[in-house]
């Protein structure tokens, strides 16, 4: 062997290893480029929505966004020390409410907080109507009487650049400006609102300072002579609930940008100022609903095994030609629209429907005691077993197809009875099929919406119906998202198990 071998070279003179690596990289890139349009498409149209839902299940920025000054002020409040937040907090709430009411945001916040403490929604609506009639009008009159320049938005604009007497005025002015801009108005053309004068007054009396600006100095001198108004009193006049510490505690508890509140709600717990507590008995529905969803899905899975096993066994052991014909009877329901099958069950199961008619005609059931088969759990289980049965039969069939007949024959030739041969030899071999079919049916069942909604009545509905209700009727999207997230996690765990047992690449569609 000569020692001049060195690295093997490709035709173009590069080392073969480098050349091969380059080709491999190019191939990888090509494959990735082919996949990337679809990947991008699915990420935008599907993964992003799921991520959005996960985000919404903890997101709670509405409180901070609608009443930012109040939540800031509440940070310093300790409910154990003082019964109510201080006057400054009430003023902050007043300022926030004025702007929120102008943009009609306070009702949304009210409904949000109402999930946590019933009654807040009407409190907010009522207060929104009244914040325009506060006594801050008196300040406005006093200051504008003192100097007409206070009426001019240009004065406020100048002060915003040169410096307001205090943070309350500055913050109120920013809020006012933003509100006007949000409404499409020009802040340099609108008359200043009384809320600005209220803030100005509190700042002027709060700080012991003298101002170079004669306008401010004159206002400062005049301020001491004005009767201070009590914001606490004004709010109490709107509704006594504002002096209820529980309302304030609720606002404080839910002031954070993210909250576990929706998840706690999904498991019948509640985040209260005192920590996590269990909800009242009459409000506990979700754990029951999750349990019902699981139990009914198990019953559906079990009846699918019961009905699917004989069919799969028959199909796997018949000659090819007749099995193919009978397979059509399995595939036709599989391919028929879900709505068609649900409508037909709705028609068949009615008290005046075909099934009851036949039972009465045979004489099993008396005409006056027709069976209640629909709008209850029975209806859901019957209809969903029918709808999901093909999903059990198909995987079972493909597993049974692979069990060699010689196994059973061998068992019999060794003296096993038919039953022993089946139970000790055939059945254990078919268990993977039962596992695959059961997980598939179970995954599909726990997320079902349409059929329970149509034939389930009130007792036969699943968690998914509750999710739909919160999205479209109660508009509690956060709770819907939290319930959905829990359901999603359950399905993903099952899916992971399915992947371990069957492998996702082995999913087969329609035989």
């Amino acid at each position: 062997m000569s020692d001049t071998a060195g690295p093997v070279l490709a035709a173009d003179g590069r080392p073969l290893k480098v050349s091969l690596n380059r080709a491999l990289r190019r191939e990888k890139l090509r494959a990735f480029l082919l996949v990337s349009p679809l990947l991008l498409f699915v990420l935008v149209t599907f993964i992003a929505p799921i991520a959005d839902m996960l985000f919404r299940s903890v997101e709670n920025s509405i409180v901070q966004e609608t009443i930012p000054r109040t939540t800031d002020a509440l940070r310093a409040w300790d409910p154990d020390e003082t019964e109510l937040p201080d006057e400054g907090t009430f003023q902050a709430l007043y300022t926030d409410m004025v702007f929120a009411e102008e943009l009609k945001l306070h009702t949304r916040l009210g409904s949000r907080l109402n999930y946590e403490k019933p009654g807040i929604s009407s409190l907010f609506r009522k207060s929104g109507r009244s914040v325009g009639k506060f006594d801050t009008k008196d300040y406005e009159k006093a200051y504008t009487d003192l100097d007409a320049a206070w009426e001019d938005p240009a004065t406020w604009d100048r002060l915003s650049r040169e410096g307001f007497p205090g943070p309350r005025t500055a913050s109120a002015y920013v809020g006012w400006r933003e509100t006007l801009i949000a409404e499409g108005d020009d802040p340099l053309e609108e008359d200043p609102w009384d809320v600005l004068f209220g803030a100005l007054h509190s700042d002027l009396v709060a700080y012991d300072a003298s101002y170079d600006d004669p306008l401010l100095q004159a206002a400062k001198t005049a301020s001491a002579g004005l009767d201070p108004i009590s914001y606490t009193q004004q709010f109490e006049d709107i509704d006594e609930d504002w002096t209820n510490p529980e309302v304030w505690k609720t606002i404080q508890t839910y002031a954070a940008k993210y909250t576990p509140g929706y998840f706690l709600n999904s498991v019948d717990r509640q985040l209260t100022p005192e920590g996590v507590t269990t909800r009242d008995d009459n409000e506990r529905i979700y754990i029951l609903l999750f349990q019902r969803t699981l139990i009914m899905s198990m019953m559906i899975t079990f009846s699918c095994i019961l009905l699917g096993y004989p069919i799969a066994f028959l199909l796997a052991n018949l000659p090819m030609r007749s099995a193919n014909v009978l397979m059509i009877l399995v595939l036709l329901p599989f391919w028929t629209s879900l709505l068609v099958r649900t409508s037909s069950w709705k028609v068949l199961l009615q008290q005046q429907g075909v099934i009851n008619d036949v039972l009465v005609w045979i004489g099993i059931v008396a005409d006056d005691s027709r069976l209640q088969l629909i709008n209850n759990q029975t209806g859901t289980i019957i209809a969903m077993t029918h709808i999901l049965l093909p999903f059990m039969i198909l995987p079972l069939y493909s597993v049974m197809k692979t069990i060699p007949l010689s196994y059973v024959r061998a068992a019999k030739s060794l003296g096993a009875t038919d039953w022993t041969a089946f139970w000790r030899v055939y059945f254990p071999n078919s268990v993977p099929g039962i596992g695959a079919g059961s997980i598939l049916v179970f995954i599909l069942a726990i997320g079902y919406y349409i059929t329970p909604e149509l034939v389930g009545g009130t007792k036969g509905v699943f968690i998914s119906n509750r999710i739909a209700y919160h999205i479209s009727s109660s508009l509690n999207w956060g709770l819907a998202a939290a319930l959905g997230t829990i359901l999603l996690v359950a399905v993903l765990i099952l899916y992971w198990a399915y992947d371990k047992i069957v492998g996702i690449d082995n999913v087969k569609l329609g035989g």
Partner: protein
Amino acid sequence: MSGLPPYASTGQKAWYYSFRVICGLIFFFLIAPIVVIIPLSFNAQDFFTFTPEMLALKPEGYSLKHYEDFMTSHDWQSSLWNSVRIAPMATFLSVSFGTLAAIGLSQPHVPFRRAIMAILISPMIVPLIISAAGMYFFYSRIGLQGTYWGVVLAHAALGIPFVIITVTATLVGFDRSLTRAAANMGADPVTTFFRVQMPLILPGVISGALFAFITSFDEVVVVLFVGSAGQKTLPWQMFTGLREQISPTILAVATILVVLSIMLLTTLELLRRRSERLRGLSPG
């Protein structure tokens, strides 16, 4: 199971026949609900059960009035039109993106193959109500909620897993030396794809397309949330009909859909046979 041996005992015979009877009953359970609505849809009365005239097979017991209602009702016709407008577009999107990606995924070296596959299959795994909720939240953020394109994109996403699964399954049996041969004879990749690869994987693509089509055409949960009144599809109209004012017209629509699915099933079966014949798996 294939036939009873001549030496079978009485017990074996009894079991053999009772097993067949049980299977017959289960088949009946599977098929009867679908078959029974067909005669019911020709009911001359507005009832959901067989009238005495129908049982006596008298012609006056039967009529086409529910079909007439379907053909003339504005609600039904506009929902049919919406379905016809949405499903093909969604199918087109899923098939074109899906086929391309399936070809990419069947290359020997794909980085992160498992992760990509998991993402692409996920619309099939995630319960529809969750997809619907997420899409409703997200699409209303970006202004797609309640629009035609919102529904089309949502349905296309739901159809993609089916296209990926069927097309990758066809590609497993694809002989890659054919594309090499084509390239060898001077065909560029595009020509190779359309003249060599596409005709061979066409059965897979078509059955994927049928799955995607039926997914969109049958879908009601997502459209219920993502769509608005302007995108009311046929299943949505059926859903409202079943929930609110149940009318026998639904049975006529259901019958039409059953006929449609029989046609679809036949097409798929023929495609499957063709593909098996091409691959030499069965004598045909």
